[in-house]
C-alpha cells in the first residue's frame, strides 16, 4: 500500500467517523410531540456526507405529519451547531416509516408518554394490564389507533401505520367503529 492509498483510507475512515457523529447529532433531536429521539422513533433513515454537503434522509410516521417542518428546523439547527459551514439537505421519504423501526429505547420512551407501538406488547402503558379494547379506528391521526384499558380506565394510542391493522393488539379490527 503506497502513501496515497493509505491517505485515502485514512480520509475515508475519518469521513465515516464524522458521518457517524453527525448521525448521532440527528438521533439526539427529539420529536416535537413526544419526548423521543428521531432514531429511536424510526424517523431517521440515514445521514451521508458528499462534497461538504450533509444529506439527511428522514421519514414521517404518516404522509400528512404536520410536524415535518418543525423536525426539519430542529435537525438543521442541531447540525449547523455541530458542524458549522456544511450545507444541509433534508430528504423526506414518504411512506417509508414502519413501526418495526422503533428501537427498544424508543418503545420505552413512547410507553412513558402513554403510547404503545403496533406489533409490540398489547398491555396498557400506564398499568400494564392486558385487558385492553380498541376504541375506534382513528385517534388524532390515521397513524394512531385509540384504545381503552379496562384495568385502570386509561385511554392510550397505539402508533402504527394505516396498513398495520394485523399488528394491532386485537387482531380483528373493529369494522365501522365501536359505537
Amino acid at each position, binding site marked *: 500500500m503506497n502513501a496515497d492509498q493509505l491517505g485515502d483510507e485514512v480520509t475515508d475512515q475519518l469521513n465515516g467517523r464524522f458521518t457517524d457523529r453527525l448521525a448521532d447529532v440527528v438521533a439526539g433531536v427529539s420529536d416535537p410531540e413526544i419526548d423521543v429521539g428521531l432514531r429511536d422513533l424510526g424517523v431517521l433513515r440515514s445521514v451521508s456526507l458528499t462534497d461538504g454537503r450533509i444529506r439527511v434522509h428522514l421519514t414521517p410516521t404518516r404522509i400528512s405529519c404536520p410536524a415535518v417542518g418543525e423536525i426539519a428546523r430542529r435537525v438543521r439547527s442541531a447540525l449547523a451547531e455541530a458542524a458549522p459551514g456544511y450545507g444541509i439537505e433534508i430528504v423526506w421519504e*414518504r*411512506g417509508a416509516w414502519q413501526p418495526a423501526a422503533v428501537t427498544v429505547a424508543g418503545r420505552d420512551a413512547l410507553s412513558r408518554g402513554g403510547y404503545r407501538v403496533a406489533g409490540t406488547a398489547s398491555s396498557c402503558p400506564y398499568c400494564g394490564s392486558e385487558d385492553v379494547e380498541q376504541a375506534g379506528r382513528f385517534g388524532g391521526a390515521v397513524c394512531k389507533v385509540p384504545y381503552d384499558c379496562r384495568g385502570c380506565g386509561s385511554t392510550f394510542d397505539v402508533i402504527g401505520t*394505516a396498513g398495520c391493522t394485523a399488528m394491532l393488539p386485537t387482531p380483528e379490527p373493529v369494522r365501522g*367503529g365501536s359505537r
Partner: protein
Amino acid sequence: MPHIPTDSDVYEVFAQSGHGTALNHVGSIVSPRPDAAWHLAKETYGRRDDLVKLWVVRRTDMIVSSADDRGLLAAKTRMPYRQPGFPTARRRDRSASPPAVAAPREGRDSGLTERRDDAREPGLTDLWLALADDLFVLGNRLGEHIVDYIDLEEALAVGSIGQEALAHAGTILVLCGFDQPAADARFFDRAQAQWQVSRVVERLTDWPSLVAGGLVIAAAVAVLAEQTAEAAQTAGAEQTAGAEPGAAWLPAITAIRDEQLVHLDHWRRWARALAAWPETRTEFARAYAEVTERAGDMFGARPQSPAQGVPAGAAPAGPALAVTLHERLAALVGENGGPGSRLPDGPGTRTWGVGGSALADSLSRGRTVRDEYAPGVFS
C-alpha cells in the same frame, strides 16, 4: 436605548394599599437621603390609606426603557392568529374583501397557460394529477366542517382525513416530479379554467354530499394506487425515466392506498348511519345519487402538457385501463351497504374548468390566506 438615569436625588415609590391589590408605582419624590426618602414617601402616599407595602428605590439604581425602545419591547413570537382580536379582525377583513371569484388575480397563471396535449393517450400520471385536484378540494371542504361536530372523535377523524387528503395531493405532485414551489403554484396560482376536477367536486356543497364524495374519492384513490403499485412492481427495480411510476413510487403509493382505505371505511360508516336515520335518509339518498352519477369521470383525465412539470411520453393508459379502473371502483363503492350507487356503467371523461363554487371557494380561500398572513408564516 435602556439607560440608567442620572438624577440621584429622585426616588420612585411603589405602594400596595390592600391585600387584594398589586404593588403599584404611585409616584416619585425628591429627597437628599434614602431613609428620609422612605419617610417622605410614607407621608406623601400613605397619609390617608393604610399601606400593606411601601417600597422606595433610587432612580439611579434602576434600568429604564426609553420612548424609542418600542421595537426592543415588541414580543418576539407574537403570532397574529393568537391575539384575542384576530377572529374579529379576520371576519371584518373578509366581509370587506370581494366575494369568492373563480378568476385569479392578474399574473396568477403565468407559465401555466400551456395545458392541453390531446395528441397522446392519458398516462397514469395524468390520472393521478386529476385525482390530486379532487383531493385538494375535498381536503379544503372538510376543513370547513371540523368545527361542526358535537363529538370530539368525529372532529378529529374529519380533521385527519382532510389533512391527509391535502398531504396526499401534495405527495402525488412530488411523485410526478413537482418541487415545492411548482406544487404551490399548481394549487394556488392556477385559474379555475385550468383545473380538471371530477364533476363530483361541484356537488361538494353540504355534509351529506361530502360523505358521498369522500367515499367515492377515497375509493378511486385506493383503486388507482393499487393499479399503480402493480405497475410499479412490474417495472421492477430498474428506474423508469422521469416521473413515471417505478419502484421509487411504491412506499408512498402503498401508504396513500392504506390511508385512503381507512378513510373509505370511515365514510362507509357515515353513509350507513345517514341512510339509516329517518331524519337524514331522504337528503342523504339524494346527495349520494347525485354524487355517484357524477363519478363516472374519476379515471377520465385528459393528458396534460410538459409545461406543468409532467414529462411527456407517459405510458398510455388508454380506454382499456379506464374501463378496468372504473369496474374496480364500482365494486368498491358497491360494498358500502348504504343506498344504491348510480355510478354509470362505463367510464366518462373529464373536462376543464368545472368544479363550480366548491372549487372557486377553495381556491379563493387558499389565496386569501396565503396573501394576507404576515410574511414568514408560510416560509
